[in-house]
């Protein structure tokens, strides 16, 4: 029973990272109705940027900030060069294009930083916290991860509910035509959404990097987990993405702990298939008539 609880506690920070990546997917889906499968490629790129900055300066916080800026820029570039001209293409085209971006970004990462897995320096104490006479399976760094995630989620929800750009984003997502007529510069708002998603993805990448290694394809599995969380959460819902992201982290930690970490992708696959069979619009999603 103790180990069961330990696995659950240990899964929270992992779940926080999955939640962030799922948020990035949801942000772009809400803005442009595209699932950005290149998101992990962007995150990997910015994580390597962060690794370079950290190696040069030794500052974890600076590396995180630089990665966030790089994430925003990369998001804008991808949206501008690939997805914006894609509006006329069919949905298959947009999906395929995001995979094209993923392939190119992973190759670019391999070209610049090499294909081998590299260790990301541990910025904070990674040993289990000692309290109440025992060692807990959660470290100071895990608290940092969870804290940053909570801050980011609060900031995002404030942005969406309290600011005019947030209102414009919601309006553009709800009905681009009406938003445009009401004076919202929809295409700029969409680009802002991509930049925002890039920032969130970059944070997720930098946060998860110390607990795994970084190589061009390390984050592939994160994409699967995040997509699973985002879809079960409804793809439209930030709350759903966060809740299901954390939930996925817990399940994965449980499964990895009780059996074998190699089973985690299979579990994600089963979860995803089950949720798509039973609730194709997700747990938190709004049921909409399908366009035909």
């Amino acid at each position, binding site marked *: 029973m103790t180990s069961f609880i330990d696995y659950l506690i240990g899964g929270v920070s992992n779940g926080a990272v999955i939640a962030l990546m799922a948020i990035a997917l949801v942000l772009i*889906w809400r803005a442009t109705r*595209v*699932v950005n*499968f290149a998101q992990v490629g962007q995150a990997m790129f910015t994580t390597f940027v962060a690794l370079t900055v950290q190696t040069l300066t030794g500052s974890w916080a600076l590396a995180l900030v630089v990665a966030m800026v790089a994430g925003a820029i990369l998001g804008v570039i991808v949206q501008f*060069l*690939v997805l914006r*001209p*894609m509006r006329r*293409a*069919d*949905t*298959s*085209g*947009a*999906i*395929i*294009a995001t*995979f*094209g*971006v*993923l*392939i*190119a*970004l*992973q*190759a*670019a990462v*391999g*070209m610049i930083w*090499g*294909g081998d*897995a590299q260790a990301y320096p541990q910025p904070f104490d990674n040993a289990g916290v000692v309290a109440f006479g025992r060692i807990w399976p959660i470290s100071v760094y895990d608290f940092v991860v969870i804290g940053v995630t909570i801050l980011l989620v609060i900031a995002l929800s404030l942005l969406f509910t309290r600011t005019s750009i947030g209102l414009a984003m919601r309006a553009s997502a709800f009905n681009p035509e009406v938003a445009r007529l009401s004076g919202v510069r929809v295409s700029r708002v969409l680009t802002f959404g991509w930049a925002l998603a890039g920032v969130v993805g970059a944070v997720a990448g930098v946060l998860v990097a110390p607990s795994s290694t970084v*190589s*061009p*394809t390390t984050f*592939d*599995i994160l*994409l*699967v987990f995040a*997509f*699973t969380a985002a*879809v079960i959460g409804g*793809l439209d819902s930030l709350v759903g993405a966060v809740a299901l992201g954390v939930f996925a982290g817990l399940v994965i930690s449980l499964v990895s702990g009780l059996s*074998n970490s*190699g*089973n*985690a*992708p*299979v579990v*994600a*696959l089963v979860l*995803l*298939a089950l949720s*798509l*069979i039973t609730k*194709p619009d997700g747990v938190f999603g709004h049921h909409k008539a*399908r366009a*035909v």
Partner: protein
Amino acid sequence: MTSLLRFPGARLVSHAAFVIIIWFLVMRLNDSVDPLANYYIALVAMYATAMFGMVILVGLSGQVSLGNGALMAVGGYVFAVTSLHWQTVPILGVPWNGWWSMVFAAVGGIVVGLLIGGIAARLRGPYLAGLTLGLAVGVPAIANRFPELLGGESGLMLTVPYPEGGYAPVEEEVFVDSSADTLSGDASTMAVPSADAAVSPDDMLTMDNFPTTDASAAVPSVDASVIDPGATDMSGVDLSGTGDLIDASFIIERWQAGLAITVACIAAFIALNLVRGRQGRVWRAVRDDSVAAAVAGISPAKAKVSAFAVSSLFAALAGAVFAQILSYVGPGAFGLGLSLSLLVGVVLGGRSSLLGAVIGGLLLVWLPEFVLSLSEKGGWGDQITNNAPNLIYGLLVVLVVLLAPGGIVGSVQMLIAKVTRRAPKGV
């Protein structure tokens, strides 16, 4: 000509004739080139087989799938497990040979395809892509779940069932059986003796028309076409290490390529009949407007599931061939990279055309070699050489989707249509 083609079954006959002619020509070509070229031909044929399925699934039925690499894994593993464990075919009791394993791989592929297709038929665009992405990552991981049966992370080495009669002259096939080494399953130790063999000048039996040095250099570079740079598990597997032959007239690569060509031609025959027949129209109708198709009496769900099953059959066949080309199956060989390669190939070649699948296969095999030759001239580092093909693929995919959604074949058709001022053929 058109009047000749009106009798019942004419299309079947003409497709059969066409495929047989192609088969004959490619087999002749295969016999006249060196083993390295045989190896490339085998890879192209293998990719083409899998991508016929991608054309049907992505191009005709409009379902973007990342899972076909995983379906190839199904075929490859069924082939490997049955060929390692069976002496006789269960139930039938007849002596086992390689073709039985292929049949079981095909059946396994269809079953899994129906299963996934049943789920996939309910899903649209990004949901389906995400589910199949999960497949591409999750299915190879299943091998880790059953390390005794499936070999876990290190995969399974298999002795390829070479023919007793058939392609190579029977009486001259004598093997120095190195299967004991082969079955030990350690790819890195396997490469060592064969690399030695490549440099030792007295080993003329395999050296005389067998550019082993080139071949062993080529394997990792072709490996780079499998997009996942982490998937280097198979880079140590040298084809020449699967069995040293006493007689030089039997060339493993040539036999493997012959097998791959034959399977590709069988797949092409099936695909041609489906695509150019009623079923092809059904798939296109559902892709273009599923409501209109349903009004016309077509079941969209059935059409989508059948597209999945057929493409899965082809993927499984390709996987079984791949297993024989590599003499190996492992999670690294069938990872997400392979699935992405298939998508790249079919998009670049032409999403809606079987010819596009072949061109895509050629592109997947040729580009890494081309980049390698450039890098030898330009003196690029490994880091650039290994990643340049994927960078080019990724950028090309984006460009093709933006500018020429029909891929190479579609663009050529458009060009011809412009020149002859006719409407392009419906795709």
